[in-house]
Structure formats: structure tokens, C-alpha cells
């Protein structure tokens, strides 16, 4: 027996269902602009260019990747924050977005001022030492760095980058003092590690793997809270320092008032694309774990990253750019 409330619910469901169907019929009615807030060739750009054509194939409208580099990704993000929330302007960002609010003064809230759509994939950084170093584990590194305060240094691909922030977080959590040596880009850091110019570095996993396998570098820990499938023998730093968690990720978001049906449609479509063989192979080669999941999961990642990096930037006294 239906009572009034149930009837009302059914009617509501029908209406929303109809509304959703209508929105789905209309959208997308023209090409979609997917902003990549970095120069062509970076990770975020490549992911956007891999996903774009598959959306085109599925929905019949081209996805145009628009590279808007500069300001550490804040220029591209600013464009999308201020874009009309019609689903025709979205952005594909990487983990640097989670640190934007900590490193830059921005006229919008990076957590509540946007509409998260989907987290694409996650990976971690790896801590390596030169094989001539006596240090073999995170525990030994912490002990050595406590005795020789400030004598140990770590290289990074640039101030404010994930490798730098991870190192600063490590200093805070492990209560050690390390000297930061920034290089320009990931290539030079790898060279510095191999030449024993710096003691260690929190660097991208995939480029380090061949050096670890050939014995030119020794891996002592990875930054995500769980061990990686690619290097199961390397412990997570959190096994020594509980709660340590630094993750490199990619995700898509749009302007704040984006209609829910469009969010849901993008979320489902990208989640489907992530499961295709081509994307699975790409994830494996890049050492990434595919993510997917609901927009809320991506929201939580941005929120926790933003809070973490704000604290690190404040306590490590990293300058904030205008």
C-alpha cells in the first residue's frame, strides 16, 4: 500500500529521473575544454590527452586539452574556478593542487571553492640512499640524522614541490634536522643521488627503479601508507613513523556550481575508462594504482592534503608566493 509520502517520493524520483535524462541528452552539446595547468609533456598533460579521446569516443564531442601553465598550476586552476559551471570547462590536476593553498595566496578556497569529480590514480615517492652509505633503513636514517643534526641533506626537484614538502614533513614527524638542496627538475636530482652529491631524496618511484635494481641506489622507504606492488620489499615510512602519508595523485574537478548529473556522468565515464586495458597498462608502467571512486573520495584527498601542507609550510617557514 502506498501512502502519501511514498507517492511523493515516487513522483520526485520520476521528476529527477526525467530531469537527469534531459540533462544527459543535452550534455555535451559542444566540445569540452579540459585544462591542464602545466606545459605539454608533464604527467597531468599526458593523462588528459589519454582520457580526452576516450571521452570523445563515448560521447561524440571532442575534449580539447588546453595547456595553461604558470604559477605552479594556479593560473590554470584560477581559469576553471571562474569558468561557467556548465560542464564545458574542467581541469585535470596533480597533487600540486593540494599544496596550492599552502604555497600561494589565492582568491578562492581550494577545497570548498570547487566541485571534485574523480580521483584518477595514486602513487608515492621513494627514499633512496647511495649504496656507499651505511644507512639501510628509515630507523637508521632517523637515528643518524638525530646525532648529526643538519649534517644530512636531501635533494628535491624544486622548492615547494612534493619531494621538498615530503622532506619537510619527514623532518617534522621524525623530529630530525635535514638540509634541503633544491635542483631544477627531477633529472638533476637523480644525477645528484647517483653521484652521492646529496645524501637522499624523496623522488618519483619509476625513474629510480632501474637504479635500485642495478644496485646504484638503495631504497629505504616509500611515502604512501601502504607498500607498493611494484617494490613489495621496500617498507612504507609509516611502518617506522606512524601516520606518515605522502601521495602523488591525478584528479579532475570543475567549477563549484557544476550540476550533479554532469558530475555523476563524468565520474562514471572516467571510472570506466580507468578500467580499460590501455589505461591499466599505462598505470602499471607509471607505477600508479588506479583510483576511481566517488567525488567525495577525491574531496577528502584534496582536503587532507591541503591541511597537511598548510601545517608543513607554516612550521617549516616556506615562503608563500603572491
Amino acid at each position, binding site marked *: 500500500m502506498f501512502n502519501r509520502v511514498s507517492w511523493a517520493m515516487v513522483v520526485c524520483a520520476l521528476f529527477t529521473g526525467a530531469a537527469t535524462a534531459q540533462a544527459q541528452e543535452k550534455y555535451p552539446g559542444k566540445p569540452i575544454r579540459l585544462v591542464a595547468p602545466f*606545459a*605539454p*609533456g*608533464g604527467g597531468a*598533460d*599526458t593523462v588528459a*590527452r*589519454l582520457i*580526452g*579521446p576516450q571521452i570523445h569516443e563515448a560521447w561524440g564531442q571532442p575534449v580539447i586539452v*588546453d*595547456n*595553461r*601553465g*604558470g*604559477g*605552479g598550476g*594556479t*593560473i590554470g586552476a*584560477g581559469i576553471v574556478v571562474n569558468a561557467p559551471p556548465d560542464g564545458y570547462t574542467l581541469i585535470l590536476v596533480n597533487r600540486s593542487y593540494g599544496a596550492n593553498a599552502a*604555497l600561494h595566496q589565492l582568491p578562492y578556497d581550494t577545497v570548498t571553492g570547487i566541485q571534485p569529480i574523480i580521483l584518477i590514480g595514486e602513487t608515492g615517492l621513494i627514499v633512496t640512499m647511495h649504496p656507499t652509505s651505511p644507512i639501510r633503513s628509515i630507523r637508521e636514517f632517523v637515528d643518524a640524522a638525530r646525532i648529526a643534526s643538519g649534517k644530512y*641533506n636531501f635533494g628535491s626537484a*624544486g*622548492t*615547494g614541490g612534493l619531494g621538498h614538502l615530503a622532506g619537510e614533513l619527514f623532518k617534522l614527524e621524525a623530529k630530525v634536522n635535514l*638540509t*634541503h*638542496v*633544491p*635542483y*631544477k*627538475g*627531477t*633529472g*638533476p636530482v*637523480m*644525477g*645528484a643521488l*647517483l*653521484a652521492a*652529491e*646529496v645524501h637522499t631524496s624523496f623522488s618519483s618511484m*619509476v*625513474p629510480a*627503479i*632501474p*637504479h635500485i*635494481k*642495478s644496485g*646504484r641506489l638503495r631504497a629505504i622507504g616509500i611515502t604512501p601508507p601502504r607498500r607498493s606492488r611494484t617494490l613489495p620489499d621496500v617498507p612504507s615510512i609509516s611502518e617506522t613513523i606512524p601516520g606518515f602519508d605522502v601521495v602523488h595523485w591525478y584528479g579532475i574537478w570543475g567549477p563549484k556550481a557544476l550540476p550533479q548529473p554532469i558530475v555523476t556522468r563524468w565520474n562514471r565515464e572516467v571510472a570506466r575508462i580507468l578500467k580499460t586495458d*590501455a589505461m591499466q*597498462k*599505462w598505470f*602499471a*608502467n*607509471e607505477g600508479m594504482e588506479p583510483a576511481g571512486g566517488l567525488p567525495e573520495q577525491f574531496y577528502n584527498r584534496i582536503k587532507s592534503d591541503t591541511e597537511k601542507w598548510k601545517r608543513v609550510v607554516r612550521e617549516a617557514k*616556506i*615562503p608563500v*608566493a*603572491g
Partner: protein
Amino acid sequence: METLTHIFNGFAVCLQPINLWYTFIGVFMGTIIGVLPGIGPSAGIALLIPVTFGMNPTSALIMMCGIYYGTKYGGSTTAILIRTPGEAASVMTSIDGYEMARKGRAGAALAVSAIGSFIAGTLGVIGLTIFAVPLASMALKFGPAEYFTLMLFAMTAVSTLTGKSPAKGVLATILGLMIATIGIDLQSGQARFTMGVAEFQDGVGFVVVVVGLFAVAEVFRGLEDIYKGTSAQAMKISGSLWLTKEEWLRSIGPIWRGGVIGFIIGVLPGAGGTIASIMSYTTEKRLSKNPDEFGKGAIEGVAGPEAANNSDTAGAMVPLLTLGIPGGGATAVLMGAFIMYGIQPGPLLFQNRPDLVWGLIDSMYIGNVMLLILNLPLIGIFVQLLKIPSGILYPLIIAISVIGAYAINGSMTDLYLILIFGVIGYVFDKVDIPVAPLVLSLVLGGMMEQSFRQAMTISGGSPKIFFSSAITMTLVVMSVISVLMPFILPKLKKYKEDGKDE
């Protein structure tokens, strides 16, 4: 012996029709990308990566590398014809190459670029074939202290670029160093001289500065000529399109030296083709019997730098393939492509995938031959461009410059910048301040400062690090000699002449 077998097997790989075809596509696209300012090899390769996903990795990488070295051939074309460096490393060519074109020798300038590029490019690939593995350790010996002393040595060459008035040269040098400091400081993360403009956080782009200083300024000068009624209707083309015997003899030395300089600089990750071509230019000017001709259309000033920026690409493949260390933007994108295909550049690559490595290296020999064949007949067509009346040519230069500058970041700020630097270039020309020292200090300044501070951080503040290795010591001594040369040389000459008189 085993290596020799691998080299031959590599030819078997790259001579497959499909790979020959992709080599051709790569070098052809590279030439076009090189001609357009702003769109450099990094962007060109990056846009291709997703398209090639799913292709055979060997073919895809052969094509992407083709783009990389192909751009160096194309970059000189616009530099010579319309004073617009099509690629950052062609900046020196837009000085003497364009002056040659104004004298009616555009054909010769284009020919010497293509031939010099071919000889040096092939020389570089030979170096890559023979020395790739032993040279890997050399790349690692260059740390911040070594880079700083190398930049110091390169910086001392500024005196050869200053022209008549040392004070004006110093002014240009300092302006270049000042521009190099704009942006977020790599060491401290502090924003410097950004004036609150977010676009300045990444610094002022090199291509933006040189397109303004060279191309836009040239248009302003041309407008003045038109206004005064002194402009030549179109540039004259005198003599044959080919090199004269004298021009050829003057070019051989610079090509070989440029090739060697380019390869060595290329092996060092972090230096790059622009520094290689500047070092070749200053070397040639120093060695030349008539250094006054430089800046006024000396063929050595085209042959050397163009050779250097080509062998640089082969040199840059050394650390990329053997260590997995990309030296610059384009090689970093190539590295991304390798990883995307599940191939790890680095120590194990030569053991695990000799077919791919040697197929790739051998394809570079073939690609260079293709580029020569492709570029030589184009000279005749490109030279026709000069017959365009200035009323059409100048808007064309502006259009190419604006599109090129906008293509880098899609930023309006860059367009305002090319205008500002165009005005600066025009004013500099009016008051006879040389532009070359500004370009040199802009390229070297940033790296010099950062490597100095990196070295000081590593050493805990002790300057002893700059005297700690044989490399740094040698470079410091060479820098001192280079600074003292202009003072000692005239006295030595005088001393010799006095001796003769007695």
C-alpha cells in the same frame, strides 16, 4: 665485438620500411616545429605522446627523437630570414645569419646551417655510438660546483661580445642578469621581482625575450625606414644560393669545433643547446682573424652555433639513455615517453633492450641524412620569402612572433612582454648597445646563481667546494686566463713586434 653486433642489428631495426617512414615523419615534423618560434621540441613531442600510445615503442621513439633533432635544422630558417629564432638554440644565428641575408647571402647562410647541422649532427651520433657508456660517468662528475665554474667560464666570454664600448656591454649584461632573477627563487621559494603578477612566478621566458629583442625590434626598425622612405623594397639576393669556395673554407673549422663543443655540452645534463651555441659563437669570435666582422654577417657565426646545437642533441641522449637523466625540457618529455611505454632509460637499458637502443641511435644517422636532403632543396623556396615587399613581410613577422609567443603558455602577459622587449631592442639599436651580452647573461645568469647557492648549501657554506675537484680547478684557471687575455694579448703582440724591430 658484442657492441658492434648490436650496432649492426640496430641498422636492421631502423632500416625496416615502417621505421624509415617514422624517421621521416619525425624529422619532417621537427623541421616544421623548428621553423615556428615558441613551439619547441618539448611541446612537439608532448603533443605526439598520446597519439603514439599503443604504437610499437621503437617506431614511436624513433619518430619522437626525429622531432627532437629535426627542430634544430628548422630553427635556423626563420632566424636567418626574418631574424626570429625559431627555437631557443638558434638565437646566435639570428645575429649573423640575418646580417648575411641582408647582404644578399641568405642562400649561403641557409646552406651552411644545413650542411653544418648535418656534419655536426652525424659527428654527435658517432660520439653517442662510441662513447655513450664510458661518458655516462662524466655526466655524473658535474655537480653544482662544476656547473657554477663552467658558467663562470662561459660568462667571461661576455667581453668578446661587447663591441666598442665596454660600459654599454656591461649595461646589457647587467640587464640580462636582472631579468634572470625574476620569478620564484629555486632555493628559497621566495618570489622575486614578480610585481604580484602570477605569470612572472615562473620567470620571463627566454624565447619571449629573444623574439622581442630580435624580431619585433627589427620590425620597428623597418617601420622607421618605411616612414623615412629609406627602406629597400626587398632584400637583394646576390650571387649563387650555394656557398662560395671562400665561405666554405671559412666554415669548415667552425663546424668541426662547434660539433665537438655541442656534443660535450650536450652530455652534461643541465647545460643545453642554447649554451652550446653561445659557447661556439664566442669561441669562433675569439679565434677569428677578423672578429669585427661578427655581428655584421660573419659566416663563422652561423656555421659554428648551428653545428653546436645539432651535436648537442646527440650528446643529450647520452645521460638520457645511459643514466635515465634528462638534461632539458625536450629530453624530459622523451623520458616520459620511454616510461609510458614501460621502458626504463638507465643503466639496464643497453642490456635489456639493445634492439631498441641501437635501433634508435642508428636511426639518427639516417634521420640526419634525410634532414639534409629535405632542407637543401627548401633553401631556394625559403629565399623567395625575402622577395616579399616589406609592407607584407613585417606584418608577417609580427604574426609569426605573436603566435609563437602565445603558443608557449597561452598567456597574454607574454605578448605584452614581446612588445616591451621589442621596444628595448629598438632603443638598444638606436643608442648602439649590443644585444648579445644580454642574451648570454640571461641564459647563464639563472643557472650560475642557482648552482652557486646549491654548491654552498651542500658544502655548508664553505667556498672550498669550488676548488675541490680537478674539473672546477681547471675551469677556474681557464676563467682567469679568459678574463686576463684582452689585457695580456695586446702587450704580447707589442712585445713580439718590438722584438722584430731590433
